[in-house]
């Protein structure tokens, strides 16, 4: 019997079955936790959800797109937070990409202490702990309860930094630079900490990309008499363009997960108990992020050079 069965299946067929067996745990999980959850999320966002506190069951009342119209027309803060999250994302993505490419090029060359510098730059990814920032904000909240010493201290530091910023804006304005440009540069300088802590993984991706460029290309460039500048634009940059897409996708998703809108959706659900609205919010944001990603990938793809 067994022999007959084995004869019926070719080797390719058997391997296909084994392949499916290997991925089966994930496949089941994906269908149950992701596909089902997405369908449920769409259902929730189109209805009013009322939860029975004792049994934990829920009842859905179909309300159509009321939740979506509500968040854009009537909700107090959604629009502002949405706009500011999007703006922050659009500012951060190019900065993180350029910064990580720059750092990767610096770190790619061999020098003493390179491993140490790499380890330090990757540290934010390791310590990128919501727990710690949460603890700090929680602690600050509890401290601000009756005392205003910290708020005074915070105000003081804020004042000093804004005073500095204003001073620099004035100086550069006197040089004849347009104010918008100086303000953008100053906001970049203020956010340098954030940019660095956001680009840990991206730097590593770019370093790997740089190391995968065949050295023969550089040899040819050298023999043909290209300068370092030309080599960068004609060899290095085209070869890393595929990874720019990877990095942009990573940065955008990362920015969304930690954005204020995610926070807002969380409080709307678990503090105000309006589950339908919360789902509508996160679905709106997911949709916008996905279309932004699609657009960026479409545009970048036109400039991307595929070696193989």
């Amino acid at each position, binding site marked *: 019997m067994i022999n007959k069965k084995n004869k019926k299946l070719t080797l390719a067929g058997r*391997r*296909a079955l*084994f*392949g*499916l067996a*290997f*991925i089966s*745990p*994930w496949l089941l*999980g*994906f269908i149950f*936790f*992701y596909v*089902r*959850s*997405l369908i*449920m*999320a769409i259902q*929730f966002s189109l209805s009013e959800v009322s939860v029975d506190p*004792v*049994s*934990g069951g829920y009842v859905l009342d179909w309300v159509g797109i009321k939740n979506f119209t509500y968040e854009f027309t009537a909700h107090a803060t959604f629009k502002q937070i949405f706009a500011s999250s999007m703006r922050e994302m659009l500012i951060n993505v190019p900065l993180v990409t350029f910064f990580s490419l720059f750092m990767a090029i610096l770190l790619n060359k061999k020098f003493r202490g390179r*491993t140490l*510098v790499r*380890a330090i*730059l*990757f*540290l*934010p990814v390791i*310590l*990128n*702990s*919501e*727990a*710690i920032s*949460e*603890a*700090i904000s*929680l*602690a600050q909240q*509890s*401290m601000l309860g009756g*005392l205003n*010493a910290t708020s005074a201290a915070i105000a003081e530091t804020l004042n000093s930094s804004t005073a500095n910023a204003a001073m620099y804006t004035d100086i550069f304005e006197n040089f004849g630079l347009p104010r918008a440009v100086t303000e953008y540069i100053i906001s970049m300088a203020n956010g340098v900490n954030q940019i*660095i802590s956001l680009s840990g993984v991206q730097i*590593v*991706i770019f*370093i*790997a990309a740089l190391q*995968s460029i065949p050295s023969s290309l550089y040899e040819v460039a050298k023999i043909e008499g290209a300068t370092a500048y030309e080599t960068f634009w004609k060899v290095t940059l085209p070869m890393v363009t595929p990874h720019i*897409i*990877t990095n942009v996708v990573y940065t955008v998703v990362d920015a*969304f*997960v930690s954005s204020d809108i995610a926070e807002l959706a*969380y409080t709307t*659900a678990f503090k105000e108990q309006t589950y339908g609205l*919360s789902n509508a919010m*996160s679905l709106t944001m*997911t949709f916008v992020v996905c279309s932004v*990603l699609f657009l960026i990938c479409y545009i970048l793809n036109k400039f991307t050079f595929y070696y193989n």
Partner: protein
Amino acid sequence: MAGIKEKYLQLKTKVETVVNEPQFDNEKSRAVTIAKKLIFGIFKIVILVGICYVVLSPVIGMVSHSFFSDADVYNPMVYIIPQNPTMDKMSMSYKTLDYLPHVSTALVFDLSLLLIQLIICSMVGYGFARFKFPGKNFLFACVVIMIVLPLNSIMLPLYMTFRNFPIPFPVISATGVKFTKNLLTTPWPMYIMTIFGCGLRSGLFIYIFNQFFRGLPKEIEEAAFVDGASMWYTYSRIMLVNSMPAVITVAVFSMVWQYNDMFYTKLFILSDKISMGKNIGGLTSTIANAEQITNPAILQLYLDAGIVLVILPVIILYVILQSRFIEGVERSGIVG
């Protein structure tokens, strides 16, 4: 005076001959190259040191603050190095956090999840890397969707699913017979999701393993197949053993992210025994109540000490594995 001027003129003519004579061209270009290298080197050192400082400064600040005594806080002369270093803050936070029992339970929880992640994700990654089956490209696109799709969009359905989790046997309670169970506040949701390959960033880990296995030569497997090894044996004894860089990468990522995670902790209301993050959130208010400390600047010191204690295991792990870990990230690449 005249002597100096003469010497100057002599030097000038010497320099002029060096600059103009073609026979010194080699020396000239060498000098220019050395100068360029020097300038770039200094520029590079300045930038790297500056960036490293930006990254390290919060850590340095927290570590130094956790040894401050009360008097040091208001002493304007004290910066980073405390004048009267004490272990008071550390020992107080240590006691309040109930450190050893809590850290060990948290680490055991994270380690068990890490083991499941390693087995499941490498299996799935191997399945995608080496076998051909109908719909493979579509399914792999689903893995990529899993990486890209923000978890926030399915947060509530997951909450509801585990609030009424279907179980195969009936539970008899006061309200009647039910085939669902409330799994929130227990660690089970994390285990179930991880076993089914949907744990914390499992998509990324599957991707890493897939990339790594695809980079390994096929000949070893063919040799094993010819020698009569089964598929499972090939996977567990040959492929997995050969993919140490990927294993280390995934292990460190999984461990650290699980340890730091607050999203699932909040969503599934995990107990603070297994989540150090949740634990430290209440640290300052507990100390403030117990010790009657109301000064926020001093409470901040306790918080810093607590944070240092909490991130200590992660830092130790990272320092031990860092060189192999970063190598692994580069080789197996999150690179597409």
